């Protein structure tokens, strides 16, 4: 059954169909939320809430083919709201900038980047992502991590495809420069 059919079945009350939609995207939504906030518990909450809202409102989705985009927009709205709340609490710098595994520095042990463990390298990359401007970060996550086309990612982030292309190029350059120090 393709995604549009699953959406239609979900709209008709088929919970198993919605379960298959969850199966298809819950890891992506969690990764998006984690990459954006750097906090597992926030990512967990956002992921649960995203699917809860999707389930509650799926009847309003007219185009089943746009389910993925719609789902990511829900998640992004929740993330932005959460980030605003955290900023208001002045926890942004203290908590979001510090990832759960501790702030990863370029090369604390003197080991070359390729000799670090996967988790260590991931921590460095996520730290660099979180230091990017929001739009650039989101586009990088959606396109490079989740494999979305630039056009679809641009629609989710609400910018033009040309802007998405430029931002992605800048993100690559930024990562190249910053990760260079780790190599």
């Amino acid at each position, binding site marked *: 059954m393709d995604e549009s059919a699953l959406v239609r079945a979900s709209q008709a009350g088929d919970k198993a169909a919605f379960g298959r939609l969850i199966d298809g995207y819950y*890891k992506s939504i969690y990764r998006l939320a984690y990459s954006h906030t750097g906090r*597992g518990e926030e990512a967990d*909450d956002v*992921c649960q*809430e995203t699917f*809860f809202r999707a389930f509650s409102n799926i009847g309003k989705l007219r185009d089943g083919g746009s389910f993925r985009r719609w789902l990511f927009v829900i998640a992004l709205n929740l993330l932005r709201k959460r980030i605003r709340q955290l900023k208001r609490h002045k926890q942004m710098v203290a908590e979001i900038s510090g990832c759960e595994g501790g702030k990863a520095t370029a090369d604390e042990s003197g080991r070359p980047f390729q000799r670090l463990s996967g988790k260590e390298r*991931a921590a460095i990359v*996520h730290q660099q992502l979180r230091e990017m401007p929001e739009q650039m970060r989101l586009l990088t996550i959606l396109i490079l991590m989740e494999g979305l086309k630039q056009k679809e990612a641009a629609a989710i982030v609400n910018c033009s495809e040309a802007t998405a292309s430029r931002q992605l190029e800048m993100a690559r350059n930024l990562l190249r420069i910053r*990760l260079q120090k780790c190599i």
Partner: protein
Amino acid sequence: MGCDMSGYDKKDDVIDVIVKDASEEIEPVDSWQALRVRIDQRIAGRDVSFAVRQGRESAIFWRRTALAMAACFVVAAAALVYTIGFVQGGREATVRNEGLFSDAQLGRLQETFSNVRELFGQQLPWIVVGAGAEAEIGIAPAIATADRGKVIIVRLAVSSEKVQGRPRYFDVVTFSDLAATCRLPVAEDGSAVNVFLKPILGNDGTITVETKVAVNGSSEARSTTTVVDDAFTSLVRLPVNGDWIKIEGIGQSLASI
């Protein structure tokens, strides 16, 4: 990860691989399967975020505990004042209107909750105050939804079918559509029940209470019941240590605070 870093500064695809690999290292604190279960539970309306994580994410636990302890100073002081008033009021009320709200009690609860709410800023707290000076406070999951403009107080009357006597009263104050999850003592032998209580204030002013009560996972009772403010309505009845415990409730909305 295994990407060839030579020539890394010349190729976008190397950066792309590094980023992709980094994303594949992301996983929930426990497991993907556990997260999948939590999503199902969230959709089913079970509010598990905070309670479940409480045990496995000590950082969150301690941060929130610190906040809760700070709030408890406020609650404890207010609860003491409230309890004295409640007990005195209760003595007068044994002849008529047993256990119903008095204006003074509502005022004190409103003041207490207002203080707690101020202390917690943008977060969503709830409080439970017992007639025996027990007080418990909690915070909703980070992105829980609730109607901040509506505050509801539900008074629970917990009684034993085996042991005759006055019920134990507990007042739960929370926002409309926000669940309070607390542990209530139900007998002198220390028996207690875990209570999930979510009141919802309807547009017509009616209060519907979703209640789930469990005893150490061995027995569970649940209901969704409309309550009123001038007579107790039965919410749940369940077996506890060879006895049957009955929980009834009355509810009233508080002025927006």
